[in-house]
């Protein structure tokens, strides 16, 4: 079997498995693990937003939690304070994070490498502290809780995320749509231009690419991914909290993306999956699971700097050649 066919077969099998999760997983492991898988899907979008910037444009953002938080609070404030229904609140979360990414990006993408990493974390810290201070609106560290409005209403019947199978498919659909969008962007001329900037920005500018504008576009798209992730997480947890905007959340997303493999579409999903599974499996037995997370992160960067997907590709090359 050729390598391409094998990878396609694995992808199809993976897709089928993801669709079968609500029936398969409760029978094999218990229904708790369905929500763990849903959580992995949500967080993988945050890691994907890091990956879009670092893996495809060469900008290491250490502040993606800011746009995650804006997505989260767009939904939370929309429902709890403004009384919005489901879809407008979702829209508010995404618009808020994209707008924030645009404003922050206008300043941030003027800088590169170290300075870029630092200014993104600074921006996210400013809003983290701001959201801690405006407690009446944001609830600060405690966050705000809300009850979910129904997603669809057909006459008398209401369908909402309270139905856990529907919730799983809603999350799966949103995440799959985002990954598909990202795939399309990477394959497009825009994606090639971004990769040209990543590989050599001087050359890219010499062939006439507008580096600043392309970086800004990528930054806003990454803000969109993080915003969808945050909005989904707000729906999933029924609450929004400033604590998810701290730099540790951004840092974890960077670790997930790099350990999974940056510059690959599914690397962040793999990285997020591994770390959240380790957390869920180990933390029930031993409360110091972060020790294992730290060790894995260090081992991966030393021995497999291209991440798990890089390891996998190396293996595939050896098998198929």
């Amino acid at each position: 079997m050729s390598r391409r066919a094998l990878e396609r077969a694995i992808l199809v099998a993976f897709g089928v498995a993801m669709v079968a999760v609500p029936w398969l997983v409760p029978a094999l492991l218990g229904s708790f693990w369905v929500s763990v898988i849903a959580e992995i899907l949500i967080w993988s979008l945050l890691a994907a937003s890091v990956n879009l910037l670092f893996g495809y444009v060469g900008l290491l953002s250490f502040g993606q939690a800011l746009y995650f938080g804006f997505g989260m609070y767009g939904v939370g404030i929309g429902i709890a304070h403004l009384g919005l229904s489901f879809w407008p609140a979702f829209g508010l979360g995404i618009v808020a994070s994209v707008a924030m990414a645009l404003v922050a990006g206008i300043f941030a993408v003027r800088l590169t490498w170290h300075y870029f990493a630092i200014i993104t974390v600074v921006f996210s810290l400013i809003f983290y502290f701001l959201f801690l201070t405006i407690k009446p609106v944001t609830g600060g560290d405690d966050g705000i809780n809300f009850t979910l409005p129904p997603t669809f209403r057909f006459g008398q019947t209401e369908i909402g995320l309270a139905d856990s199978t529907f919730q799983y498919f809603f999350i799966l659909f949103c995440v799959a749509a985002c990954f598909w969008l990202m795939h399309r962007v990477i394959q497009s001329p825009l994606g090639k231009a971004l990769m040209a900037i990543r590989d050599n920005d001087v050359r890219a500018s010499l062939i006439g690419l507008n580096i600043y504008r392309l970086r800004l576009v990528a930054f806003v798209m990454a803000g969109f991914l993080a915003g969808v992730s945050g909005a989904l997480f707000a729906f999933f947890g029924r609450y929004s909290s400033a604590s998810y905007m701290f730099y540790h959340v951004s840092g974890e997303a960077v670790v997930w993306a790099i350990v999974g493999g940056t510059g690959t579409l599914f690397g962040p999903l793999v990285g997020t999956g591994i770390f959240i599974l380790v957390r869920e499996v180990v933390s029930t037995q031993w409360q110091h699971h972060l020790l294992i997370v730290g060790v894995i992160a260090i081992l991966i960067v030393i021995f497999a700097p291209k991440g798990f997907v890089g390891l996998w590709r190396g293996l595939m090359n050896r098998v198929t050649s």
Partner: protein
Amino acid sequence: MEILLLLAMNGLVWGLIIALIALGLSIIFGLLDIINIAHGDFFMVGTMVAWATVQMTGNFWLAFLAAPLIGLVLGAIIQRVVIQPIRNAAALSIVATFGLSMILQETARLTFGAVPKRLLPPIEQTIRLFGIDYEVYRLFAAALAIAALAGFFLYLHHTKTGTWMRAVRHDPDTAIAMGIPAERVYVLTFAIGFALAAFGGAVAAPITTVDFRGGVDILPVCFMAVIIGGLGNLPGTAAAAVLLAFMEGIIQSFADPTVARIASLVLMSAVLLVRPQGLFKGFAR
């Protein structure tokens, strides 16, 4: 007025301690090109060593010796095991040091527990100063920090290994060609960076709480000092640390501490965007 003076004084003392820690961050950054996310935890290790020293011997003064020594040893080991293998991949260093940060925090929690602890200062008197009763230990802490800063700059400019460090930072290839053992200089630099942070931790332990998450809040402040002072500009870093903490102290006298923190973060963004070489470029080299 008294409150303002007290907070300004506290800010000054705290700034000197931060300067010490930020200096460690700055030399590691300048020489090894590493954004060290674990640096706040190096500080935390210092506070833990101070606490452990007091628990075991009952003598606080030994901590001022134990913390930098343990910092030196741990720093050398970490550089050899974790940092050296990824020397040529700066982006990976963020992930590696983030992992390191998790390991240090969890190890501290595993060994010393999750409950924040308070340490009594070895000097408990207060002194009448400009009309306020001020803790003598804080003045002593400031003096210690100044002494350590001065000691470090003397070391950097008047010893052989200090000169090596400056040479490798300036131009690693030429330095290696001249026979300077750059590998050993990297180990030394990382070890000294850790030791400075750990010493800062021991000095600060009676002023703050001893907590396994103690480094999390310190790290952004140190980065602010390094950026506002100018990356790699060591005197600038020290000056910026004092300036920032002093400013935050004054703002805290009429507003919330988080407002003070936001103000310094905004100042830092402005510096990054307008003067990325730092506020003090041209004043010191």
